Every structure is written in structure tokens, then in C-alpha cells.
């Protein structure tokens, strides 16, 4: 097995935030937000400690300190101290596809928080993705860490080597959400050429990229994760997007790099997409912590199915108007949006649900660092197949438990996966179920017991389930389920990619476009393809164990 150590074990690495990150001693809580379900969600404010960033020792709490808590004894009503925040994440959207998906994501995130946080107070859940800024302040200051929401700015960096998409975003309804200082754009585009994106623009914009990333990290109290969104088949998202990964790894080694990659479908109209994808895969293999592969065909199939359900006019089959799943404008049936909007929304929902347990409370929390810990048994095998249910809700309000069980069954069906994959008929290395809404541990366990017999798990991880329960459901649904599977069913996608690559490469088709870029040689291609082959080989080895009987290994024998 290929195992790549991620650096020596040893003295404690520091998470982002310096070594002097001081103690936060908790006092009482001050906020109660009402959910759409009328449950109380609490945020925290620490009173009772007058520690501020930069000092190393907690000093004694002093009442009446300037800007401090009022009424520390008993239940304080005012906010004083900046909330002991949760972690933050920064989204880096690269290229046309990355930015379009990113845009959908920000739209959904805003609406989710608006639905949950009805008092307009800037709380920790929001702070995980947004900054609160006083727009009257010029320059860099103006970050407000508490109190009413003034102006929300997305923790995002937008990168594109063409201006079209980013300009559209900046003229659209979300223009105020993005900080104009967090954009990197060029005019000429990458010409669907990974080498242009990676080497030419990489070199050209390295400093700027570093600067923007550092800035966004500085705005975070405790940065936990970078979400990178891009496509594999083009030039910018693929090339520059993966160039970024190396930069992030060097500059922020302890911050997770979670990559959402849109893989080209069979009928992709970019001829060189296999080249771009394979070259990008090598970078993903080496520098990403976790990759969520998506492909357009699957998204398209899902949307078609939804359309079918809606247009079939079955009794009671209407999409709830507030459901964020299919449309950004809230309109249920009209396809007035651009063709990819519905598909992008699915991916955006994926990202929202992925982070829900880290943002909102629940009886069994799952933080982002737990994803990698539980789902990546070997460093190379970090590709996770995702599936999302429900994709639409019926008009029923009182959904009996049978529907809940249906949700679980759907998550394992190949029609709900976000790439063309069939996890049920392949081998599971690990599986995570992230549930949102009013679902209890017994429901979860019942469904795992029910579905387990039809799934095959690798011999050393027969009960490889990671579960989480988040109390806050997504808007418009009573509950939802996101399943992340580390399963050998990703292999066919990679094998097919390699085949398409080889068809082109054997004829040296379009190769000169790449080789004329400085630093590119044929060895880049051969290395990339052998990196992919090694990965495929690992999956093959695992698949070979599929039908072998599970035997217990001999244990250590102890002299009694």
C-alpha cells in the first residue's frame, strides 16, 4: 500500500492562530435565536474573562470594563466580549465553473442563515462563512465581531482568468457580499489549457494569490478549512485551481484543503479535457486532503428526474416554494434561470450540508476535521462519493417515519450520487452519514442496521460508519441526509478518464499547445498518468479483497 506520511509526527503543530492563542474561559450565554422550528439555538459569548487576542494570560474578570459585558452576574442580556467563535472556513472559487457554483453557494448560505437567524445578530454560525463589516469604514478596519449584522462579507477569494463570470457576479444581486479586494481576474483566459492556468498564470499571480489568501486568513479567528471549487476539464479551474493547492499546502499546512472538483462527462465539448483532468488529478493526489468529485451528467440526470416528478403533476407533488434545493430564486417550476443554475445548486447544497454540523448544534456533532480523520484510511485514498437526499419535498407536512427510512435508502441508490457511481455494488472503505433535522439516534441506527446487509465493507472496517446529527434542518425540509462514501466505485471514473487521455496522447493530439509552455515536457504527462495508474491500482487491490471471506487475524498471545 502506498502510504505517504504527511510530515514527521512530533511536537504539536499549531492550528492556524498563533501559539499564544489564549484561554477562553466561559461565562454565561447571552443570545437566544429562534429557529424556524421554534427551538432555541444558543450562541455563546464569553463573559467573565477579559482576555483579548494577543495577551497570553487570562486576567481577572472586571465588571464595568470598557466594552465589556454588562451584568455578568446572573444572565447577562447584552453582548460584551466577542463570541468564543467556532472555526471559520474560506471558499476559494477558481475558473468559470468554480465561480458559478460558488455564487450559488453564497446565495444559499445567506438564505439559510436568514431563515435560521431571525434577529439579525451576527453569531458564530454566520461567522464561519461571513465577516461582519461596517462599510462606512474605509480600508481594512471595519470588521465587527459582534452585535447586529451590518454588512456581511463572504469569506471568499474569487479567481478567474476571464472577466465574464466574475463581472456578472459583481453586477448581480450578490455584489455586496463580495469584497472587491478579494478578486483576482485577468482578461485573456486560459484557453482550456491546464499548462497556461497552472504555469503561466500561476507564476504571474502567485504573489497576488498569496496576498489575498493571507488576508482572508487574517480575518479569521481560527481558520479550519479551505474549500476549493473548480472544474477539472478546463484551463483556469483545472490549472490555476490546482496550483493554488500547492500554495495552500506550503503556506497553511494545518488548514484542511477540501476540494470540490467537477469532472468532465463523456460528452464534454472541450477536446483537451482529458489532458487537463489528468494533469490536475496528479495535483489532487498529492496536495488535497479530501476531494469530492462531481460530474455534470449526474447532476443533469438528477435535475431531469426532479423535473419529471414535478411535471408529471402527481397529486401533492409540488416542490415547496422555500426549498433551496433546485432554485435560487425560490420559483418552483419555471426554468428562467440559466441552464446550470439548478445543477450548481445541488453542489451548493452539498457544501452547506457538509458544514452544517460544524455550524449548528446537535446531539452528535461532526466537525470538518472529523471528515478526513474518519473517511481517509490511507493518504492517497481521499476521494469521497457524495449523495444528497431529499432532493425535493412533497407537499406533505407530516411525513411519517416511512419517508424518513426512504431518505436513507435513497442515499445509497446510484441515482442520487453526484458522480456516475454505484457504491452499493462496490466496496466501501468508510461511510459517513450526516443527518440534519429532527432525527434521533434510534432512527439512524435502525436504518444502518437495515441497509448494512446490502452493502459490502472492506474486511478491516466492517462497521465503518461515521454519523452525525445536526438539529437544524435545511430550509424547506424537515430533515436531510448527506452521505459521503469512500468507495471503490470511483474507480470507473478514473479508468475512463485515463482511457480518454490515452486516446488523445497516443496520437499526440493537441500536445504542442502544452509543450510550448515553459516548464512543460512530456514527462509531466507520463508522470501524471502513472500517478493516476497507481491510484487505480490501489483501488484494484482493495476490490480484489471483496469476495474474500473475512477472517479474524491471530491475536497477540499473552503469557498468563
Amino acid at each position, binding site marked *: *500500500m502506498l*502510504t505517504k*506520511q*504527511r510530515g514527521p*509526527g512530533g511536537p*504539536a*503543530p499549531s*492550528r492556524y*492562530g498563533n501559539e499564544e492563542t489564549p*484561554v477562553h*474561559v*466561559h*461565562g*454565561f*450565554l447571552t443570545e437566544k435565536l429562534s429557529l424556524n422550528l421554534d427551538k432555541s439555538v*444558543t*450562541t*455563546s459569548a464569553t463573559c*467573565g474573562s477579559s482576555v483579548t487576542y494577543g495577551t497570553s494570560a487570562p486576567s481577572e474578570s472586571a465588571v464595568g470594563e470598557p466594552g465589556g459585558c454588562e451584568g*455578568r452576574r446572573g444572565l447577562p442580556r447584552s453582548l460584551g466580549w466577542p463570541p*468564543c*467563535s*467556532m*472555526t471559520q472556513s474560506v471558499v476559494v472559487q477558481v475558473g468559470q465553473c468554480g465561480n458559478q457554483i460558488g455564487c450559488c453557494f453564497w446565495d444559499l448560505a445567506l438564505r439559510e442563515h436568514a431563515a435560521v437567524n431571525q434577529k439579525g445578530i451576527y453569531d458564530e454560525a454566520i461567522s464561519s462563512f461571513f465577516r461582519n463589516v461596517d462599510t462606512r469604514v474605509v480600508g481594512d478596519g471595519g470588521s465587527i465581531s459582534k452585535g447586529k449584522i451590518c454588512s456581511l462579507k463572504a469569506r471568499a477569494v474569487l479567481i478567474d482568468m476571464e472577466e465574464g463570470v466574475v463581472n456578472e457576479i459583481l453586477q448581480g444581486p450578490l455584489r455586496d457580499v463580495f469584497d472587491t479586494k478579494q478578486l483576482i481576474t485577468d482578461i485573456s483566459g486560459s484557453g482550456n489549457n491546464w499548462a497556461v492556468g497552472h504555469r503561466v498564470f500561476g507564476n504571474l499571480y502567485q504573489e497576488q494569490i498569496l496576498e489575498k489568501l493571507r488576508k482572508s486568513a487574517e480575518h479569521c479567528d*481560527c481558520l*479550519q478549512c479551505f474549500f476549493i471549487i473548480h472544474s477539472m476539464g478546463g484551463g483556469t479551474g483545472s490549472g490555476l485551481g490546482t496550483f493554488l493547492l500547492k500554495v495552500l499546502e506550503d503556506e497553511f499546512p494545518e488548514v484542511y484543503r477540501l476540494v470540490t472538483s467537477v469532472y468532465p462527462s463523456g460528452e464534454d465539448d472541450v477536446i483537451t479535457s482529458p489532458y487537463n483532468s489528468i494533469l490536475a488529478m496528479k495535483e489532487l493526489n498529492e496536495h488535497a486532503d479530501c476531494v469530492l468529485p462531481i460530474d455534470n451528467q449526474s447532476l443533469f440526470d438528477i435535475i431531469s428526474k426532479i423535473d419529471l416528478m414535478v411535471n408529471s403533476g402527481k397529486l401533492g407533488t409540488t416542490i415547496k416554494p422555500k426549498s433551496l434545493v433546485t432554485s435560487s430564486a425560490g420559483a418552483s417550476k419555471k426554468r428562467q434561470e440559466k441552464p446550470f443554475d439548478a445543477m450548481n445548486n445541488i453542489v451548493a447544497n452539498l457544501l452547506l450540508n457538509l458544514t452544517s454540523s460544524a455550524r449548528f*448544534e446537535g*446531539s*452528535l*456533532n461532526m*466537525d470538518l*476535521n*472529523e471528515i*478526513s*480523520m*474518519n473517511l*481517509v*484510511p*490511507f493518504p492517497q485514498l481521499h476521494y469521497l462519493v457524495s449523495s444528497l437526499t431529499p432532493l425535493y419535498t412533497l407537499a406533505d407536512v407530516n411525513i411519517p417515519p416511512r419517508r424518513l427510512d426512504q431518505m436513507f435508502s435513497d442515499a445509497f441508490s446510484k441515482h442520487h450520487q453526484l458522480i456516475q457511481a454505484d457504491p452499493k455494488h462496490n466496496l466501501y*472503505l*468508510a461511510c459517513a452519514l450526516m443527518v440534519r433535522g429532527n432525527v*434521533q439516534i*434510534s*432512527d439512524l*441506527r435502525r436504518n*444502518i442496521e437495515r441497509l*448494512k446487509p446490502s452493502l459490502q465493507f472492506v*474486511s*478491516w*472496517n*466492517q*462497521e465503518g460508519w*461515521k*454519523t452525525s446529527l445536526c438539529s437544524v434542518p435545511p430550509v424547506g425540509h424537515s430533515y436531510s441526509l448527506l452521505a459521503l462514501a469512500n468507495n471503490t466505485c470511483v474507480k470507473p471514473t478514473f479508468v475512463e478518464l485515463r482511457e480518454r487521455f490515452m486516446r488523445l496522447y497516443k496520437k499526440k493530439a493537441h500536445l504542442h499547445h502544452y509543450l510550448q509552455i515553459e516548464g512543460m515536457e512530456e514527462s509531466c504527462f507520463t508522470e501524471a498518468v502513472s500517478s493516476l495508474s497507481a491510484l487505480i491500482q490501489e483501488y484494484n487491490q482493495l476490490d480484489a479483497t471483496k469476495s474474500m471471506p473475512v477472517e*479474524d*487475524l491471530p*491475536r*497477540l498471545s*499473552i503469557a*498468563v
Partner: protein
Amino acid sequence: MSIVTLQLGQCGNQIGFEVFDALFSDSHCPQRLCSKRENEAYQASCKERFFSEEENGVPIARAVLVDMEPKVINQTLLKAAQSGRWKYGQHSGFCQKQGSGNNWAYGYSVHGPRHEEPILNLIQKEAEKCDSLSGFFIIMSMAGGTGSGLGAFVTQNLQDQYSSSLKMNQIIWPYGTGEVIVQNYNSILTLSHLYRSSDALLVHENDAVHKICAKLMNIKHISFSDINQVLAHQLGSVFQPTYSAEGSFHYRRNPLGDLMENLVPHPEFKMLGVRNIPQMSENSLAYSTFTWAGLLKHLRQMLISNAKMEEGIDWQVRPPLSGLPTLGKTSLNKELHFNTSIANLLILRGKDVHSADLGGFKDPALYTSWLAPDNAFNVWKTQRAFSKYEKSAALVSNSQFLVKPLDVIVGKAWNMFASKAYIHQYTKFGIEEEDFLDSFTLLEQVVASYRNL
């Protein structure tokens, strides 16, 4: 004497809240079945153990709350404060922003050393509030990263700093089918470290408590809240005050010390379990009456057949005839699935408690041969009823009950270890393969020792 409770991680904090709530509710329960004076003594004793006084009369739990991410502690503090009946101290919580990622190595090697000072300071402050410290009660789970890893680290530290105080770790055994994929690794690392530094490990299995909720309490959609409440009830029935000696009406002063003395005669055998009877939903309670004879008969059979609740007990299991040579007895035990005990502590609460006949528990066939049954079996009583139960009995035992679950966890962890899966996540933070091997060795030893009783 007082007990300082340490609530670690999500599980520890969620359970800790329910425990204090159960203790408080019972302490102020209207149905007492004893004299007013006695009830006041009971309340005072409970208070001394678990709560300290606050100016406006709201008791403060003697607890330190630790978690590496803020959400759970915030909720716990708020829930307690909102109840208006008791609360946590204003400065009794410590948390960080980013959790331990279900990584034992991260909890133990990174969070532990980094936050050692502030955490121990908090503990010290709480300990200083006690007139007399009996010891520490540490609530943690084995499956995650903070409770397990940081819990192991803190327990080790307490051993150094408070060598004369006792430490009991309340460990939550995860569900057999995953809550966390690496739970078996985290579990074996936790158990092996705690075995060296803790004085006793009181184990509760999620699977067992879940069944109690389903079968006895008749809860349809079981939530963690339900599970934690059942757990808290069991712990309350162990830790609430009892008379210090036969016939006396003074309450026991040193619960932890007495527990250890009775139940942990040898450092190689530290695993304790609790069984509680009766346990049922409030609706059913109204229609049930109990006799001590009935309760004790069931409890005894639960012990010897290793049942965790009073339904579905296997009545076929009988103690082997005494007089057999020890080797014969061991193999017979294995065949009959008979659960041999090292020591048992029976705690009886309620009406006519002095009339209960305890002969069944004094049978030497229940025990190993090293201790005379008089030493192996102890009973604590109080006339004061617990919670809403006119009569209730709890059995804390040091027996073979965990051999099978422990064996299963070690086996699964071993299979995973052999393929080296997930090991890189641990070596990243300084836990090497040798540490794993050490843990395996120690636990195989524990399994073998218990099996050969």
C-alpha cells in the same frame, strides 16, 4: 467529603448535565419515605458531595467543563442556568475553537500539553472550594477525540498532582456499529492509558442503555437525551448518600474511597459495571409494586447471567457447584456463560430496606476464590427512597461482564491495525505503532486476567 466532576468532550458534558440534574431532582423529590430530619441530612450530604453554595441560594455544581469546541459547553451552561434550580460556576468551563477531530492522538498529544495549565488550574480552583476532597469523577467517552484522548491525558496529570485523591473514570462504551469509524483505535488507546492511571473504570455501554430505553422505558424514538437520562439515573442511584454502617443513621462520608475499597482489591482488575432495578417509565411505575425478595432475585440473576436489564434474563444460568477444583470451575463457567465476580456492592434504597434478605449475594459460588465472601460482598442502605421508586436497588460489580465487549473491540482494532488503515492520522501527532502495540498488549492481558477468574 466532596467529589469534583470533570466533564470532558461532547459526551461527557451532555451526560454530566443529566447527572447533576438527576442528583438535584432526587435530592428535592417530594416522596421521601423517611422522616423530615433524615431527609434534611440526606440533602445536606448530597449537597456537600456535589454542590457548593452560592449567595442567592442557587447551588453550583462542583464541576469543571472541558471541550475543545464551544457548542456543547455553551448549551450545557445555558440549560443549567435556565433551569433556575442549580447551575454551573461562572468560570468553570474551558473550551477551544477547534475540536479534536475524533483523533485520540490530537486530544492526547496536542490539546493535552497545550492546555494543561489552564485546565488544571480550573480543577484546582474547584478542588479548593471543597472542605475535604474525596476525589475526582471524570465523565468521558472512548470513541471520540477529546473525551478519550484529552481525558487520558488529564487523568494522568491528576495522578501526578493529586496522588492522594481518588480518580474514578466514567467511560461510555460506544455502540458496536459505529458512531465513529476509528472508535476502536480510540478505545484501546484510552483504556490502556486509563488502566495505568485511573483507580477505577465505571463502564456504561451505549448498546445496553439503548436497550433499556427501548424495552423497559418504552421510548419510541430514542434520543441521546433519553440515553443520558437513564445513565444519570443509574449513577445517581450509586452516588447519592447512604448510611455509613449497619444500623447507623449517619451518612457515609467518603463514597469514592469506600467504593474503591470494596470493589477494587487488585489493580489489575479495575472494570466496574452498574445494574439498576427497577427501571421503567413513569406510566408503568404507577401500576407496579415491588418486594425486596423479587428485586434481589432478579438482580442476582442479572449478575450471574450478565444481563444488563430485568427483561430477557436467562434463568438457566446457575452458579457452578462449589467444591469443584478451580480449573474445572473455570471451564464450567465458560460453558454456562456464568459471570464470575470479584466483588459486589449492593446499594438499597427505600421502604423496609432493613428487611431485605441478602443471602443470595453471599453465596461463595458467585465469587472467585481469592476473597472471602464477607469481603467480596458489601451492602449500603438508606431508607430514603430514590427518585420516584419506593424501592430500588443498584449493584456495582467488578466481574467478568466486560470480557466479551472488550475482546470484540480489541479484535476489531487489531484487524484494522494489521492493515495499517488510519495509522497515518495518529502518527501525524506523535502516537507511533509501538504505542498501539503497547495498548494491545496491556488489554490482551486484562482480557486474559478476567477470563481466567
